[in-house]
């Protein structure tokens, strides 16, 4: 074709590509935001945190979506991202091949990853259980401490349990990953409240088990969008809240702002309002 032989033809194609790519991206954004929202929720600083520190070379800001996993064993913490509900049955439902993974060298290989829908529950049953676990743990450590007040170990355990409970009540995220599936509609039927359950896209990775731990499990590798860009029009609302405040928040101070986020038809989020508390 003649157009490929001349430089001018190639430049014209470059211009067309530039505008076409932008048109596709912006049309996608428009479609995502103009149709009915797939999730709409108000979160606080506990769930949408500011960056750890100000980036000197970047004055744009994104808020990080912080979600947890309910772990009945409190010592394992809630950020390990290997939920108990991602069991063999659920993994089969998600389309993972869960057979014979504990044999041969298979468990040394990189396990497969799959993009699925993940249900995040806000301030629901999972959080209540997590809070109850922290309270139980505190009571248990308090009893031990009262019995052995001179023992340094029990004293430290008691103080840690107290801090953990305090964080759980005031500053830890109340957003929990509670389920996953391949179809949005099916999940939405099961979790109809759009203000409590966010359904987002994310990656689940199989965890190959060794011969001792026979039970098949998987981890949530990442959500497709974990950092949500804060538009300029809301920047002034957070101008007095420094990243130091956010750091303090993580060790037990109350949240200072709340943010409404919406997820569109392409399951991509945006911030629709920001207010200080």
């Amino acid at each position, binding site marked *: 074709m003649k157009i*490929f032989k001349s*430089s*001018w033809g*190639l*430049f014209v*194609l*470059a*211009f067309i*590509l*530039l*505008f076409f*790519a*932008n048109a596709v*991206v*912006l049309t*996608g*954004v428009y479609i*995502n935001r103009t149709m009915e929202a797939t999730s709409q929720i108000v979160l606080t600083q506990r769930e949408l945190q500011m960056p750890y520190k100000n980036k000197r*070379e*970047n*004055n*744009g*800001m*994104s808020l990080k979506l912080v979600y947890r996993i309910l772990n009945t064993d409190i010592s394992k913490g809630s950020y390990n991202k290997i939920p108990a509900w991602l069991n063999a049955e659920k993994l089969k439902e998600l389309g993972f091949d869960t057979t014979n993974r504990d044999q041969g*060298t*298979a468990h*040394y*290989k*990189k396990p*497969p*990853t*799959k*993009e699925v829908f993940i249900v995040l529950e806000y301030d629901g049953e999972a959080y209540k259980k997590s809070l109850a676990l922290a309270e139980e743990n505190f009571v248990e450590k308090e009893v031990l401490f009262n019995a052995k007040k001179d023992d340094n170990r029990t004293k430290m355990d008691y103080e840690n349990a107290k801090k953990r409970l305090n964080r759980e009540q005031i500053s830890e995220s109340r957003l929990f990953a509670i389920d996953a599936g391949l179809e949005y509609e099916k999940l939405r039927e099961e979790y109809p409240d759009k203000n409590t359950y966010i359904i987002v*896209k994310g*990656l689940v990775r199989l965890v190959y088990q060794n011969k001792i731990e026979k039970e098949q499990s998987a981890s949530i590798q990442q959500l*497709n*969008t974990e*950092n*949500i*860009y804060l*538009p*300029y*029009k809301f*920047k002034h609302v957070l101008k007095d809240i420094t990243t130091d405040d956010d750091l303090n928040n993580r060790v037990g101070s109350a949240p200072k702002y709340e943010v409404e986020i919406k997820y569109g038809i*392409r*399951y*991509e*989020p*945006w911030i629709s309002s920001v207010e200080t508390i």
Partner: protein
Amino acid sequence: MEIRSVITAQQRTDQIKSFQAELQILKDENIISLSPEQNKTIAKYHQELLANYSLKFDVDTSKNEKQLSLGMKIASFLAALGLAFSIFFLFFQFWGDYTQNTQVVILILTPSLLLGVTIYLRKQQKGDYYTKISALLAFVAFVLNLFMLGQIFNISPSLNVFFVWSIFAFLLAYALNTRLLLGVGIIFFSFFLSAKVGVWGGGYWINLSEHPENFFPVAAILFLLSFIKHSKLTSFDIVYRYFSMLLFFLPVLILSNNGLSSYAEMDRHFIQGFYQIVGFSVSAFAIYIGINKGLSEVTNMGNIFFVIFLYTKFFNWWWDLMPKYIFFLIIGLSAVFILMILKRFKSKLLKNTLWRLS
């Protein structure tokens, strides 16, 4: 003979220069004598040709000019790199101070304007280096354009963006005969295709590097592309061949040491052994075919990877077993052995050439 590209113009210029030098030697040693008129005709013809090439293709007509050109190429590369980084950080520095609409306008206008400047400079035909710098900046601005749109609208990361960037780089590279942009285009295209192969293999594209075999199809495609006629474009075929061999040998090297990263559900030692044989035989074949067909880049890559495969094997076998002085002695002796083989190869080649001449 019509000259259409810089590379053929430079080749012809070098040929004329060699001819003039050889003619002078022949004259000095009284092997040939030309009449003053013949001398004048040849000199005038060559002068006209050289002036024409210099004007039209900016070729180097002397050794000094060639050295200067190399310096200019390095300087323009550094300028392009520096300015590209500068644009990148400039965006980030002031990014949060604009409304979303302004951000979108800036993001689309910047690559468009830089592309316009590139076309303008290309039209002027004077500042070849400036045109290439401007093209690279247009490319960086386009990368930023789509990347930042993704960030401000929280768009899910997509594999297709690598394809779009690679096509943009290819278009500019072919329009301006720029190897740097061709290399950039190849890198982005490799990302795209190898990730796509990973998706076809049942994985998720972000984890493209977990299976080195994902890179084999792109290596094969680039190798085939190198045989498309690139007569108007300086060494594009060589760039394709370099990248194709790199994208073949590097995964083979990884797989020959880590069989677990293979798709094959076999014993990892078997996979490693298989890829070691592949690595040795293909690199040796590359040396042979490169010498036979006069493709120096194929020979070079074959040489480099043959030695890497060999030394990796030595390391695996003997590093823990031997005292270090013996290990390095073996390395040194093996290098001498390779040198001897290559020397024999060279003398055989020379004999063949002399035989053909006789």
